[in-house]
């Protein structure tokens, strides 16, 4: 059993800066949890606290049933993959992977079997006698994974392991790490600032900002039901569009008014906000330019003046301004649209998100 539980954990550095004010987080056994957030949000610190590389100022950290605040890293039964891989430069690939087992006085035959098994899974067999400097980035990455694998740890910690790889290799390693998780069936905690990695790999994602958990949920929930403006903006690429709008009553439903445009939404939660400003959130793919959609959604249309159009193949990203700030729409590439054109766009009002302007918390989805 390797649940990880943070109970009111505080991390304050020696210079008095508090990076984690009060962390409560429970990671279940065998779960793949991704900690994601912008740099400086405390995600790496959180991971390093699990590893035992950072002390905990207050609160308790449990791995399984034990409080591990004062347990040395080597006694926590964890393995960690670092951003820079942190391979031992003077050892061969084989030695790098065998090192931890040798320290534990594991029998030679068992070490050999484990290292060769890991090398086979990670396709590292031809490189076992090489030193790290003679390997490519992707191979080094796999050695770092292998070094962690051979130990059969209770918890696998990964600190931005893919950020030094090129885009193609990153996609490849992403699926390799996911399948590794399935094969090993242990708890994985993965830190990244890349929301694509988070969305594709995590069973659950913990979005952090300034040391505070913004939302901890499945990728689907985060995408469809973000708790606040930060999560809504952070998850999803291209980013969600935000527009400040005023709520007007319109019979049994409500109008959201921005500039000269107004769209009708049918969300009873807006009753409390009549006459007030809110933040309207629309994902780029929920803006439609298709004829039949526009016909059906007459009361949720507006005209956009295209500033920039990026052809992505199957779709086009259109950039335009609403109330002076840039927005983006993702429409099928068969629709004729180009720079300097005026295009009619319809909002899928079933999928809009509305946030409180003061607290930035979600009102309705």
């Amino acid at each position, binding site marked *: 059993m390797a649940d990880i539980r943070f109970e009111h954990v505080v991390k304050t550095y020696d210079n008095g800066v508090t990076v984690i004010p009060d962390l409560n987080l429970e990671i279940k056994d065998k779960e793949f949890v991704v900690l994601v957030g912008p740099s400086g949000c405390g995600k790496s610190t959180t991971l390093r606290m699990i*590893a*035992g*590389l950072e002390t905990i100022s207050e609160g308790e950290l449990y791995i399984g049933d034990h409080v591990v605040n004062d347990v*040395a*890293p*080597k006694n926590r039964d*964890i*393995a*960690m993959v*670092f*951003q*820079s891989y*942190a*391979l*031992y*430069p*003077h050892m061969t690939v084989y030695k790098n992977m065998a*090192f*931890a087992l040798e*320290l*534990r006085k594991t029998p030679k035959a068992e070490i050999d079997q484990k290292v060769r098994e890991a090398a086979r899974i990670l396709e590292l067999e031809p490189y076992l006698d090489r030193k790290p400097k003679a390997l490519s980035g992707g191979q080094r990455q796999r050695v770092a994974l292998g*070094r962690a694998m051979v*130990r059969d740890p209770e918890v696998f910690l990964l600190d931005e392991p893919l950020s030094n790889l090129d885009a193609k290799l990153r996609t490849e390693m992403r699926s390799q790490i996911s399948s590794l998780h399935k094969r090993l069936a242990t708890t994985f905690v993965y830190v990244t600032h890349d929301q694509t990695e988070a969305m594709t790999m995590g069973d659950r994602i913990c979005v952090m900002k300034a040391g505070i958990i913004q939302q901890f949920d499945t990728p689907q929930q985060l995408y469809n039901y973000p708790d606040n403006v930060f999560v809504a903006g952070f998850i999803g690429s291209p980013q969600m569009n935000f527009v400040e709008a005023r709520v007007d009553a319109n019979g049994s439903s409500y109008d959201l008014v921005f500039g000269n445009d107004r769209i009708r939404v049918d969300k009873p939660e807006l009753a409390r906000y009549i006459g007030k400003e809110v933040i309207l959130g629309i994902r780029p793919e929920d803006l439609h330019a298709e004829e039949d959609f526009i016909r059906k959604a007459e009361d949720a249309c507006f005209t956009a003046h295209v500033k920039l159009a990026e052809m992505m193949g199957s779709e086009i990203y259109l950039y335009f301004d609403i109330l002076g700030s840039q927005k983006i729409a993702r429409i099928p590439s068969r629709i004729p649209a180009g720079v300097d054109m005026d295009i009619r766009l319809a909002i899928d009002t079933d999928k809009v998100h509305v946030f409180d302007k003061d607290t930035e918390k979600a009102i309705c989805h």
Partner: protein
Amino acid sequence: MEKRRKLSDHIWTIILALLAVAYCYPVFMILINSFKKERAIGTGSIFKLPSKETFNGLAHYVSAIESQGFLKSLGFSLLITITSVAAILLFCSMCAWYITRVENKFTKALYYLFVFSMVVPFQMVMFTLSQTADKLGLNRPFNIWIIYLGFGAGLAVFMFAGFMKSIPLEIEEASMIDGCNPIQTFFLIVLPILKPTLVSVGVLEAMWVWNDYLLPTLVLDIRKYKTIPMLIQYFRGGYGKVAMGPMMASIMLTIIPIVIVYLAGQKHIIKGVAAGAVKG
């Protein structure tokens, strides 16, 4: 532009070649004179190559080795050099590890103290040092390494600390997670990574200790213990006259070990010296 650069390259090559000759010539002179008969090593004939009449074979070398406790002095020199260099490498690398990994005012002050010790001339402290060494009983070849450790620490800590800063901390953290305690991390991970710097510091310190004349002369009991540089100074023939031939031969014999050490380690020296300067 290209032409001008080529010309300046040539000029530099000539200047540096002349400098190299100037540096090597004294050694060459000692070498040729060590093969000449004693009477041929005079002021008038010192620059001449050995001829049929003046060539003496290896006779001076044989007499140098046989006479006046050359082998004993060689032993003392070896003992002092090996113990001093070993102590400097071990203690200074540990100290530099502490200084680079534990960052606080104390370690910073310690670091600057080491760097400062490099600029204090030996002559400034030598008399008080020889008195202190006598009082503490550090005037024997077996424990003079403690004094050498003190004088060698400045350069060694400076070089080790420079290189250690370029070792990513994550490697040490990885070793801690893998199961190392701090001592294992140091000996199994940090020290092997430091190899180029260890070699270069080792060679530099070995050259200094091996060739050092002043410190052992002041500290050691001259009647009992003489290192090679001291012995050469006291090389005298049967009638109180300096025996030039055996002296030159013994100088050549003394140079050989340290040249071998230098040649074996020289490719690491450049690496080691440059390692701290450029972020890796």
